[in-house]
């Protein structure tokens, strides 16, 4: 229990989780759509501002969990309401709370039917997402993990595109299938842990190697589907394409991070030996994802599908950074999670704005709008630059650190840096598809449709995009502040990892001549 710093004072995290949930109540009694929008915007903005409180109270020198709260919940099964925040999760929580108001803004005119219900879904999603990142009781985590599937399913299934039912069901079942075995693992760990679901007690326990392997594989299935890692990614293009803009933004910016968060929070500490053993395979799988995502994105004519596949590529870099298991790699990957959330979220917002005008996601119908939408293409250009890690933007810092970590990993073991070099095609492909999309949208060719009727983005849309641009450059030019937040936790994670993965290292050593 000493890893917890119980919080005195107002329960910040609980407020953040339940405020959106409680805010649903007024929405149930009103019939006014406009009120629904404004109320949700106010609530999410208040939550966002309040979450900044976490920054001011966060102790950057310790790796213990902070802002913790512990209450008994279901005494008979020893399921407790334990939540807490550390360097790994704080940025993800802030990402979630800060992005929600912009999802509301983006849906202002996009959603015109059953607006109340949509806003209810957004609020419930927010509660569930924050809950996932702060839960320290495994069953509580699982409850929140499953809970966020339902509003997402509704968001895609009710307000989505032409094949929304297909996409929403695919999303739901796919993710659920991965999580089913997770529950088995959770219960096994419950029994092993003296009938407690408390996560910190499950970490670094030196379980038997075979048990670790099995538990890791269940973790892997659940989280790899979420990330999404190749070849478990096929739900993503369908879901993204059919989801409404706000749905895509939440999906890309937050939901995908839960997979990688899961690896860092659970797979590494609970099954360190298995992690070391399987890391090389996962690293190559990540490279496969990077290159595969690049190739498939290049072939797309649907803008949302293009960005969806690009997410597969970007998240490949993130998992690469995690599984090189060194300070630079892991810090780079956490930063890159935030970067991807910012950049890809912004790109989906941009595509959504085009869709609202042309009612098509096809690149063909959006060519040549540069002349008529100068503000829009300015934003789009910077976000595209960030997407392929142009220096000065946020993604460059993250990718740089991940590559440095990859080099450390290989060169440190005296091996030729195949991994880092294998990432070259991915980086070049990323530039290729992003610039192709950018060039077509801004200038197009000689057979552009007549775009003279298109209106440039209005004030609301500019306000929606501007903070993303701010973060693109803030993280790109002054990343130190962000890295400071995670440093202690990552350092602790890796030092504990080194201390507890002896079994895995020797097993790997025995298998490799």
């Amino acid at each position, binding site marked *: 229990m000493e890893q917890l710093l119980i919080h005195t004072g107002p329960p910040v995290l609980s407020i953040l989780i339940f405020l959106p949930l409680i805010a649903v109540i007024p929405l149930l009694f009103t019939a006014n759509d406009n009120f629904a929008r404004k109320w949700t915007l106010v609530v999410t903005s208040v939550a966002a501002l309040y979450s900044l409180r976490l920054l001011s109270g966060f102790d950057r020198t310790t790796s213990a969990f902070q802002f913790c709260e512990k209450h008994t919940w279901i005494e008979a099964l020893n399921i407790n309401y334990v939540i807490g925040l550390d360097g790994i999760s704080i940025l993800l929580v802030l990402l979630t709370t800060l992005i929600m108001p912009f999802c509301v803004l983006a849906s202002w005119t996009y959603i015109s039917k059953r607006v109340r219900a949509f806003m209810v879904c957004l609020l419930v999603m927010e509660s569930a997402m924050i809950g996932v990142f702060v839960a320290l009781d495994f069953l509580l985590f699982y409850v929140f993990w499953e809970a966020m599937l339902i509003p997402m399913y509704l968001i895609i299934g009710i307000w989505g595109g032409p094949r929304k039912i297909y996409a929403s069901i695919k999303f739901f079942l796919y993710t659920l299938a991965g999580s089913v075995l997770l529950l088995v693992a959770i219960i096994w760990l419950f029994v092993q842990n003296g009938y407690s679901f408390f996560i910190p007690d499950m970490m670094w326990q030196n379980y038997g190697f075979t048990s670790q392997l099995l538990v890791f594989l269940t973790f892997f299935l659940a989280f790899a589907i979420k990330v999404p890692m190749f070849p478990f990614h096929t739900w993503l293009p369908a879901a993204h394409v059919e989801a409404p803009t706000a749905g895509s933004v939440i999906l890309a910016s937050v939901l995908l991070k839960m997979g990688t968060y899961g690896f860092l929070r659970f797979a590494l500490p609970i099954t360190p030996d298995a992690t070391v053993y399987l890391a090389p395979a996962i690293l190559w799988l990540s490279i496969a994802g990077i290159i595969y995502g690049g190739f498939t994105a290049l072939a797309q004519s649907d803008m949302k599908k293009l960005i969806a596949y690009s997410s597969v590529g970007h998240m490949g870099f993130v998992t690469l950074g995690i599984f090189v298991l060194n300070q630079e790699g892991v810090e780079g990957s956490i930063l890159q999670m935030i970067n991807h959330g910012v950049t890809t979220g912004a790109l989906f917002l941009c595509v959504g704005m085009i869709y609202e005008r042309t009612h098509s996601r096809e690149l063909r119908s959006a060519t040549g709008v540069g002349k008529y939408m100068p503000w829009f293409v300015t934003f789009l250009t910077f976000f595209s630059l960030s997407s392929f890690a142009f220096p000065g933007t946020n993604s460059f810092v993250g990718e740089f650190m991940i*590559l440095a970590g990859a080099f450390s990993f290989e060169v440190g073991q005296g091996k030729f840096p195949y991994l880092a070099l294998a990432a070259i095609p991915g980086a070049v492909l990323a530039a290729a598809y992003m610039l192709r999309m950018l060039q077509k949208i801004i200038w197009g060719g000689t057979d552009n449709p007549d775009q003279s009727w298109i209106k440039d983005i209005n004030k609301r849309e500019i306000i929606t995009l501007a903070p993303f641009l701010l973060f693109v450059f803030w993280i790109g030019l002054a990343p130190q502040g962000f890295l400071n937040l995670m440093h202690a936790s990552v350092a602790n994670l890796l030092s504990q990892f080194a201390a507890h993965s002896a079994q895995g290292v020797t097993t790997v050593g025995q298998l490799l001549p």
Partner: protein
Amino acid sequence: MTGNFGFLHPSLILLVGAALLPFIRDPFRKPYLLLVPILTFLDVIFLNANPGTYGVVSFMGDWTLTFGRVDSLSSVFAFIMALMAIIGTLYGLHVDDHWQHVAAWFYVAGSLGVIYSGDYLVLFLFWEMMAFASTFLIWFNTDKDSLAAGYRYLLVHMFGGVLLLLGFILRYQTTGDFSFVPLDEHHSTLATWLIMAGLMLNAAVPPFHSWLPDAYSKATITGAVFMCAFTTKTAVYTLARAFAGFDVLIYLGVFMAILGIIYALKENDVRRLLGWEIISQVGYMVAGVGIGTALAINGTAAHAFAHILYKGLLFMAAGSIIKATGSSKFTDLGGLYKKMPMTMLFLLVGAVSVSGFPLFSGFVSKSMIISAGFEEHLPLVGFALMLVSAGTFLVAGLRLPNLIFFGEFKGKQEVYDKAAEPPWNMTMAMAAASILCFAFGTFYPMLYAMLPNAGIEYNPYSTYHMAETLQVLACTALVFAFIKNRIGAKANTMLDLDWLYRRGGRGFLWLASKPIQAIDTAWGEVYRVVGLVPLMIVSRFWAWFDWHGIDGVVDGIARGVRGLGQRVSSGLQRGQIQYSLFFTITFATLALLAFVWF
């Protein structure tokens, strides 16, 4: 030594100038367009007079970024780059589309940034800026090929950028250092080669050279003038800084010098020919970097200096011809001396400069490298470069002007009638460059004073050198007089390494769109077939079981009860109320008695 006067990075002037340009209206536009590069040039001169290290900032904790490393090597390159920026902007003064000027200035800003950078991170930032900005200089050309050419250019440069990035990250991992300093040939690692590959690509060293003729012939008229001056020479600077003395560069340099001439001899497009000429001349510079002695580096710097001027002049003349006739192909040109004599004169000045005529800038620069080659006991290198000198005069000094300005005009008559001298700004820019080519050739101490390694004595106008050069020029002209029809204009082109990614590129895109997309769709199908179909079969079974099996039992009971009820009711219900009453009361009384009793 950090500066104690306010250090203003020249690139900043260009960047701010570019950002403000869209807001400047006529009649201030043209003066403003000239003012910004002039200010940049003045800043460069000021910095060059105050060598030192400026603009050091710390980033992410333990890294320091150096934006202003001003020493003799960077000063000479920065000087000529900034000067060329003025000439180039003057040449493009008539262009109304301000985005083209913005792109050009971003491009020059990137170039100056690289030259003044003191570490790889800063270098990389400006390197990417150059790649990105110059791509737009191609895309702004509205010809149908330019779009694809721009993509090819961009992707090739992104590839080079990633190689460079990986190289210096790897170097950082092993040495903990980002600083941009000379590397050691004898302790070269994978990082060294990666960095060299990245820099080589921008310098168009084979095998990374194919992008150059492709891109420079498809850029806008003014864009090509900028591009020919900056990318390759900035890369030469970086090679001179980090790879001086690497022997492999000598051989690559000689190879590329010869390769350039051979391809240029067969080219039909004016700007492609000039592009191959660039590769050839940069070959001299790369060989000079490889030789690495003080004289050789001086020669490289001098040759880069001279080359920027005369190549810019040649591209300006070529651009004027394209503007006048609408065509860049030799098979459409010829006999233009009557309509464009001034342009011809300027082209000839550029041509004789590149050929190394005495009194022009090429004469005082190229020979330094050749002398350095001989002095370092590399006679083959020296002879090879002299061979290339002959070829240079043949191709650029004789073939090029001959096919454009002499002979018969091979295009349509209306085109010939409309052909005229270009606007005043283009003529003035060409005149300025011509005067400078002559000035630096004749008053060469001006140039020599700026060279990086001071104290190297070299006299280009020695009798020996004059005799050698004049012999070369005279005899090349002699040969040309006899064989000029064999190297005339033919509407053909030669294939090059870019075939791999152009034909290969088509295959690549096909690969991306067909098979891989098919795999992805198929994988989804696998999930459907292996996962969903059995799932649905199983669930249909259970649904059937549920309906007919379990529910069947329930339904069966219900039906049975209903049937029973029907029979009972048809039996019991006689329709006459007295009988119903009698049965009901009897039943109720029996039930009550039973309840009371038990």
